[in-house]
């Protein structure tokens, strides 16, 4: 007779010294792990609730300007340097890690309409209401010396915006018409006009560096190629666009922030229909900036909120607001994809986290794993009604809540009326018009 009874050596299962970690033998047999579904669901629910508990996006504000902030510029090489231009003609350079103003320049006599850095970051340009473009050195002058621009260009009309080429020593300004300047010349190298009153903003494409996008007062967005002498195309929308921004990862996609509370993402190869319409703001959208990953963008609007939208979705995933923040004039997403900056009417620049419940700083490997596990759980159970309800919940000021509801009722009633018209008239007389084509008036060459 042969017999063996199960017997374990405790030394194999207990740690040898207090400095070791505990031993954890594993057995993945499913009969030892019952209730996988409900347990994972409970964990996902807990993860979603904790995300809402730890969602504290506001980091701090940069205080110092004496009038509203109109434009922001990111330093291309340094993550902690920011430039801001305000309504009283002042440009301030900020150090984000210390949250203080490092340098103040009295640049212009009116609004500072646009600031932009050279890609190397050694100098920057500013244009303003006093029809002057000034070039400044990024290094602060020595203590006793006054702030002097490296170069001054006197223009003929008010400039509304400025942007620098991503590779060459060329910059473009917009105002009455679109001017392309070379750094060494005092006159624009090329001037593009398309019979419009004013061009509101201009942006160079970061990947196809010879392409420019500009918004104009005739409610259109125009595309130009610097290599040619004539403009490429333009698309006319129902209302005018305030700003445009190119996707840093996709060469042919740009998003426009429009006055009709929406943002439109276009593909330049097919301009007659927007790729996506992003609807969630309840007032004109004033500025937009893409994240460095090219998957999301942030928009600041005249209703005093900032919203973060994913590129492929039509609604925002996050909304940031504060009682003290008034009309948001400019927003930027930092180049390390972690922070947002918003400059607003009440002279403050605010620093926010891009992921509201993210823990900043170096994470221990176990912490990192736990966060990654929670992210995956939330992704897996995102469509369950309870999980969806909790993760979607955002507290929003009363005005915005009631306005959103009103807009929703308005849109639903339009749909209902159209459906009734269709139901009570000859089949085919009221055609189905897709939402995307409703907002574009025409495309022109």
């Amino acid at each position, binding site marked *: 007779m042969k017999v*063996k*009874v199960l017997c374990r050596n405790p030394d194999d299962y207990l740690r040898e010294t207090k400095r070791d970690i505990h031993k954890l*033998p594993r057995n993945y047999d499913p009969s030892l792990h019952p209730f996988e579904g409900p*347990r994972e669901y409970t964990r996902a629910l*807990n993860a979603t609730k904790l995300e809402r508990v730890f969602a504290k996006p506001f980091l701090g504000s940069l205080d110092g300007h004496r009038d509203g902030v109109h434009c922001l510029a990111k330093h291309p090489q340094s993550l902690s340097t920011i430039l801001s231009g305000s309504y009283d003609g002042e440009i301030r350079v900020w150090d984000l890690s210390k949250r203080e103003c490092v340098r103040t320049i009295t640049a212009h006599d009116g609004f500072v309409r646009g600031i932009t850095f050279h890609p190397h970051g050694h100098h920057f340009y500013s244009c303003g209401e006093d029809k002057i473009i000034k070039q400044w050195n990024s290094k602060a002058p020595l203590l006793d010396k006054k702030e002097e621009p490296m170069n001054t260009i006197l223009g003929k009309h008010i400039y509304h915006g400025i942007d620098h080429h991503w590779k060459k020593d060329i910059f473009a300004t917009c105002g009455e018409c679109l001017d392309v300047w070379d750094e060494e010349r005092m006159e624009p190298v090329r001037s593009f006009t398309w019979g419009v009153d004013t061009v509101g903003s201009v942006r160079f494409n970061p990947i196809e560096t010879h392409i420019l996008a500009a918004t104009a007062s005739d409610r259109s967005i125009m595309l130009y190629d610097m290599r040619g002498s004539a403009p490429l195309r333009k698309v006319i929308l129902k209302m005018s666009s305030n700003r445009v921004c190119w996707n840093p990862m996709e060469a042919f996609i740009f998003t426009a922030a429009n006055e009709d509370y929406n943002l439109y993402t276009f593909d330049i190869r097919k301009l007659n229909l927007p790729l996506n319409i992003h609807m969630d703001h309840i007032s004109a959208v004033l500025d937009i900036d893409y994240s460095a990953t090219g998957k999301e963008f942030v928009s600041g609007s005249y209703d005093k909120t900032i919203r973060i939208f994913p590129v492929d979705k039509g609604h925002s995933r996050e909304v940031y607001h504060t009682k003290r923040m008034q009309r948001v004039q400019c927003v930027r997403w930092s180049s390390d994809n972690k922070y947002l900056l918003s400059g607003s009417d009440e002279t403050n620049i605010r620093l926010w986290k891009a992921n509201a419940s993210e823990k900043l700083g170096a994470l221990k490997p176990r912490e990192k794993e736990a966060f990654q596990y929670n992210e995956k759980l939330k992704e897996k159970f995102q469509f369950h009604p309870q999980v969806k309800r909790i993760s979607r919940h955002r507290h929003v000021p009363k005005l915005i809540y009631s306005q959103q509801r009103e807009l929703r009722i308005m849109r639903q009633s339009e749909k209902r009326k159209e459906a009734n018209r269709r139901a009570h008239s000859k089949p085919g007389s009221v055609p189905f018009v897709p939402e995307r084509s409703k907002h574009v008036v025409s495309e022109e060459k």
Partner: protein
Amino acid sequence: MKTTFQSHHYQEKEDKFEKAVKQAARLEHVQEEIGGFLEVEKGEESCKVTQHEIAQDVDITSATKFFELELRQFGPYRMNYTRNGRHLLIGGKKGHVAAMDWQTKKLMCEMNVMETVNDLKWLHTETMFAVAQKQWTYIYDNQGIELHCLKMLDNVLRMEFLPYHFLLANANAKGYLSYIDVSVGQKVAGCQTSLGRLDVMCQNPSNAIIHLGHPGGTVSLWSPNVKEPLVKMLCHKSGTRAIAVDSKGSYMATSGIDRMLKIWDLRTYKALQSYKLGAGPSNLAFSQKNMIAAGIGNTVQVYKDCCDRAMSSVYMSHQLKESVGCLQFCPFEDVLGVSHGAGFSSLLIPGCGEPNFDAMELNPYQTKKQRREVEVKMLLEKIQPEMIHLDTQKLGEIDMKTLQEKTDERNKLLFLKPEKIEFEPRYRKKGKSKTGKFEKRKKGVQEEQKRETVKELVQNKSEEELKRRKVQDSIPKTVLDRFRKKSA
């Protein structure tokens, strides 16, 4: 699937799942321990091998696992092992209660509660246990200190602890089944079963359903969400004496006064095997390796491999001095604990325990700190009682009916003209009849009416669909159908 991009995306996800399953299966080779076994020569029979012979042939530590506690004074005993198989709780009918670590033989507490003890169960860790006494149920610390007296649970005959839901299920002498959440201390659900005295009870470890046996030979399955039994099965021709369910939740063993032992498949509720024994076993237990232990009068018999196919012979057998009170296999050990009229015996049954445990679930070698961490994690992952169903896979499925209904309702609601109902709300005091609230109440009634009409519409539509389909199915189909003219 909308686009090829999305279908590729989903295909990738499915591939990941398959890979994970394959990896988990491959890890079986890494596992260290091998289970026990008993091999007899050709002439011998395994059921004739005695415990003393096994204890002599086996190493010292395993031989210490075979022991007897002779306690004749305090009546037939009931016992319970903790979930990791480390601690043992025994309680005599006349009030003697003792908790010990049975492997090191260290006594944790011993006391006499001065009342009849009907049943005892460990709670989620070895720090607390519940004792169902004559009148009420008490919860004690592992030092013997009385923590709670649960007056809402009176005359409890049998208890079962559902570890992942933190629910203590109690079956009453008056036929009342109640569930208490021990983490919060509230009664979660309870219902009058109206099926008489409940003294046969068992839980299904894979889906937390309670099985109750009744004197008519029926077995009923209960969940805290429904006031009626989920399933009622007629198992025996006369009364049911014992029930046991295996750890995977696929087999149920029942025994009755008609001397039969039947094995049922819990997915189809059909009898797989039935054996006629000398007498109906009064206690049944399943081990982790699907061996069944049956307590028949003074003997304990262990059957191996009797669920899938008809067994030919008994695996092991042991004779006791008094009749069996309660049986339980010790998890992760090759040991069967039997409590009887003369105390407690621990028997060696080679091959009944799972050799490799998963330390993230249950760890027999856990330290105090590990126990505390695990307790916190278990509380955080406590499953709500609403999720107790016969089929645990339901949570992962899409609720097609509700989705369809919701979309239909949403589409209809936009385009309906509501009928005008003349509704004058009653005048209420204390500011509840302000004009705004008045109008709101009127509107609320209108909306309700609209919803009712939409629901009716949707239901009528689905009924019509069903009728149409029936009609279509009833018309016999021939090959020449496609040449017939289709009516407009």
